[in-house]
């Protein structure tokens, strides 16, 4: 996520979301989905895409797919 949005890793916290990351706009989100799908070899369905609005929600969705998120 830090790589996609070009911010320091330490700035990504449990509270990170589109509200507080400048580059998290529609373009940034599109890139994030692409990066996550390629990195973890997963895909997201419609419901998951709409839920992915914060670090916490993305982490929960990835963990639901059996992926451990640090």
């Amino acid at each position, binding site marked *: 996520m830090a790589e996609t949005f070009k911010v320091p890793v330490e700035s990504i916290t449990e509270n990170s979301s*589109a509200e507080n990351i400048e580059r998290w*706009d*529609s*373009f940034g*989100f*599109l890139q994030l*989905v*692409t990066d996550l*799908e390629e990195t973890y070899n997963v895909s997201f369905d*419609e*419901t998951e*895409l*709409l839920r*992915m*609005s914060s670090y916490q929600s993305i982490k929960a969705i990835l963990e639901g797919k059996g992926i451990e998120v640090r």
Partner: protein
Amino acid sequence: MKYDKYLRHYEDKDWRAFKQMVQRMYGPRYIFTNKRFVDWQHRHNGSPSSLCLIDFAGELKGVLGSIPLNLNFLGRDLSAWCYANIRVDPELRRVGLGVALIEFGRTPGKLVYGMGHSDEMTSVYRNLGWRSDIRLNRYLKVLNTANVERLKTVDAPLTAERKPVENGFSQNSCTQVHAFDEDMDDFWLAVRDKYPITINRYSTYLNWRYADHPMIPYKIFVHRAPDGSIQGYVVVRIEDSSGYRIARIIDFVSSDDSELPLLQHVTAYGERNDVDLVDFFFSGDFHVSSLLSAGFVKNDAAGHETIPMLFNPIDRTRKTVNFAYSLPTEELRLQGDAPYKWYVTKGDGDIDRPY
């Protein structure tokens, strides 16, 4: 693109769901609920695929309507697309489906431009690498000062009209026509170098766009030289909204000598028909000298700047018409990335309608 599975072209079987989406996203009476209009603009425009849809979780959630056009691009013909209408469910905008729709609707390698979009869309176009910082000029001529005074929100006078400059051609040579014939093709070939980048105004296009419009009865005035050859034309829509009658100049192409007679003719027509205000939106500096001679004033003049551009209902939030373009190759960018070379009017997209 990751989202391709959610994007597709409109098909006839979509009409019912499409109309429901439009009513939900735009309002119950929006023009896209009229099948005649949709068919005319997006099904009978020479392309079978100029409406793109977002089909997300079994429901239509967004639309991109574009119009295929043939441009005069610095003396050569170039096919292009005008993005006339885009709307995406806000939730899906957040996840990037609006961006994906714009890219999906684009034919690779084709020049594309858009008009009348929101400021938010201006940012999206900019992020996609478009030139998006352009706004159309608006020139106005007030015919009924007492009535138009009531539209102002500032205490500044409406600028006095300039005395028109006479020239060689009389406005009496202007006539109203109801279709464009082949003489128009000859005229366009003779005049098109004056407009470096613009839609090719051949009769086929002009008839589709104005003469055969399914809903709007445009007034088309043509100016001829003494030998009968066409020297220019102007397309006007008369709008009666909110207690005002406005003459909108939608398209205007003319040889230099015929600019003023055509504008004077529109003014005289407006005066005879109780028009309060004439206005004209366009890009570049085309016809400005004649507009000023005919008594038009740019809308940055005191008194004119607060006259609304939308009258049905009166809406003071929209103050400009945004314009953006994307040139797909370095060669086109080198030649055409100069807003002053572009001549677009309200006739280019689908922003010319009173509803």
